Each structure stands twice: as structure tokens, then as C-alpha cells.
């Protein structure tokens, strides 16, 4: 536990500037949303989507940076005893996940603010879902697996540092991932809504219509009376995938760095 806390502190010192810059960038997006207050809902949705995507990319770059301190062994000197691979991986992942949680919850708050600026009345339950439930669902389904995949990629490349062929594992994993992901997504699509969906944004007819509306007037799967039913299967599957990726990365770290 002490090792985890020390590594978490080191991670905060090393990646703190990245995290602060990312959180600070929300001021820019808030300014952009304020400038677009008299435009259509679509422009504000595009701005929020851009903020979410760029945030995920910055987080992946932050967690995947190669660090000379790790290669030089200063961690072991600082900690006096070598730490388990899982501790290293967990501390890096936990710091990035904490930054992501803060970023996306504030982004959810911005979405709520943008809706309020547009004159939409937001009930308390829908506001809480917009600020907390949806960002955390997105983090668990998309951001956490992306961060775990990035960690595995960097450790996988580091495993070939001695042989000097780091570009081969990087190329194979980056080319193979979209293909494996396609199978995974088609499987998730098959099992979706086997369990009851979670009703959200019940009091937000405007958002419900925006998210689920189609040009032919037919609602998408998982919607009823303007209420969005979020499937819970992707959440559990992607969380399980995240855990598997982290365990594989920690095993690899132990074999390579220990």
C-alpha cells in the first residue's frame, strides 16, 4: 500500500502538468459553449463531443509516455524495495482514471450548463444523470479500456527494448486491435439488452428527442417515450476487458522490468 501511495505521488508529480492542462482546457470549452449559446443544439453537442474525444487522446498520451526514470531504476532506489508490476500499473492507471473522472464530470456539468443556457428545464434527477451517471458510464465503457490498452501497448513495446525491435510489437498491436475490436463490438451488439436497460434522462424530452430522434420518426433500439434506456452489458464487458488488460500488462511488467 505504501508502494502504491508513493508511486501514485510520483505519477502525480510527473503527469501533474498534463492533468492540470487538461482540466484547464475545460475553461476553453466553456468559453466556446458560451459563444455558441445562440446557435443550434448541434453546434454545442459537437463542441462537447470534441472536448470528450480530445480529452481521451490527451489522457492516452499522458499515461503512455515513456519515462526515463523507470528505465534508469530510480523508482527502486526511491522505494528501497522493488515493487510488484501490478503496483506500478495500478498507480499509473489510478492517476489517469482520477484525472479522467474529474475531467468528464466537469464536462457533464458543462453539458448541463449548455442545456440551461438553451432554456431547457433540467429536473434534478436528469441533472445528476447528466453530471455523474453518463460521464462515469462513458469512462467505464470507453476511457478506462483505452487507458488500459495504452498501458499494455507501452509495456508490450518495452518488452522488446533489448532486441531493438520495438516498432514490430507496436505495429502488430495497433493493426490488430481494430480487427479484434470489430469482433468484440459485434458480440456486444448481440448480447445488448439481454439484461434490463437503465432508464436515464426521463425528464429531458428535448435531449431524449435529440439523442434518439431519427428522420423517419422511428426510435432507436433502447428508447421508449423519450426515455433513453442505456444497456448495461457494454459497461460490464468493457470493465472486465480493462481488468484483463491491466493484469496482462502487470504480468508483462513483472517479467520485463523485475
Amino acid at each position: 500500500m505504501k508502494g502504491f501511495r508513493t508511486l501514485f505521488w510520483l505519477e502525480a508529480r510527473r503527469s501533474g502538468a498534463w492533468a492540470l492542462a487538461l482540466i484547464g482546457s475545460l475553461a476553453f470549452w466553456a468559453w466556446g459553449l458560451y459563444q455558441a449559446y445562440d446557435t443550434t443544439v448541434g453546434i454545442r453537442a459537437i463542441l462537447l463531443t470534441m472536448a470528450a474525444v480530445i480529452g481521451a487522446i490527451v489522457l492516452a498520451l499522458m499515461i503512455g509516455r515513456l519515462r526515463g526514470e523507470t528505465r534508469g531504476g530510480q523508482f527502486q532506489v526511491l522505494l528501497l524495495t522493488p515493487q510488484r508490476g501490478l503496483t506500478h500499473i495500478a498507480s499509473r492507471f489510478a492517476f489517469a482514471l482520477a484525472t479522467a473522472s474529474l475531467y468528464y464530470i466537469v464536462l457533464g456539468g458543462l453539458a448541463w450548463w449548455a442545456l440551461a443556457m438553451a432554456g431547457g428545464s433540467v429536473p434534478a434527477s436528469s441533472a445528476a444523470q447528466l453530471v455523474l451517471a453518463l460521464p462515469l458510464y462513458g469512462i467505464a465503457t470507453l476511457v478506462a479500456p483505452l487507458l488500459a490498452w495504452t498501458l499494455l501497448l507501452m509495456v508490450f513495446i518495452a518488452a522488446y527494448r533489448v532486441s531493438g525491435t520495438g516498432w514490430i510489437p507496436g505495429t502488430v498491436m495497433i493493426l490488430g486491435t481494430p480487427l479484434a475490436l470489430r469482433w468484440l463490438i459485434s458480440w456486444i451488439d448481440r448480447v445488448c439488452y439481454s439484461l434490463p436497460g437503465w432508464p436515464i434522462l426521463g425528464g429531458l424530452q428535448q435531449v431524449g428527442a435529440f439523442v434518439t430522434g431519427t428522420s423517419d420518426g422511428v426510435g432507436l433500439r433502447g428508447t421508449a417515450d423519450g426515455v433513453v434506456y442505456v444497456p448495461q452489458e457494454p459497461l460490464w464487458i468493457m470493465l472486465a476487458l480493462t481488468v484483463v488488460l491491466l493484469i496482462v500488462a502487470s504480468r508483462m511488467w513483472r517479467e520485463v522490468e523485475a
Partner: protein
Amino acid sequence: MTQAFMFVVRALLLCLVGFWAFRLWIGTASWTARGVGVFFSAVLVWQIVAGTL
């Protein structure tokens, strides 16, 4: 003509991925890294042989 061309392309891609898989196997002492390398190489081989390429 097109089928013959695609056959040659697939054979060349298989050789390339096979070479990568070989380098991934011999380039590390970590068995987990070998396993991950074999998994992603197999995904690429499957796509080349039975995929839509």
C-alpha cells in the same frame, strides 16, 4: 487476373506477418509478451486468410 493478384498480395502479407510473429517470439524473454504477440499476429493472419481483404 484479380484473384491471382489478390492471392499474391495475401501470400506476401502472410510472409510479412509470419516474419513479425517470428521476431515477436524470439525478441523477448517474457512469455506474456510472446502470448500477446501471438494473439495479435493470429488476428492479422485470420483477417488475411479468412477476412474481407
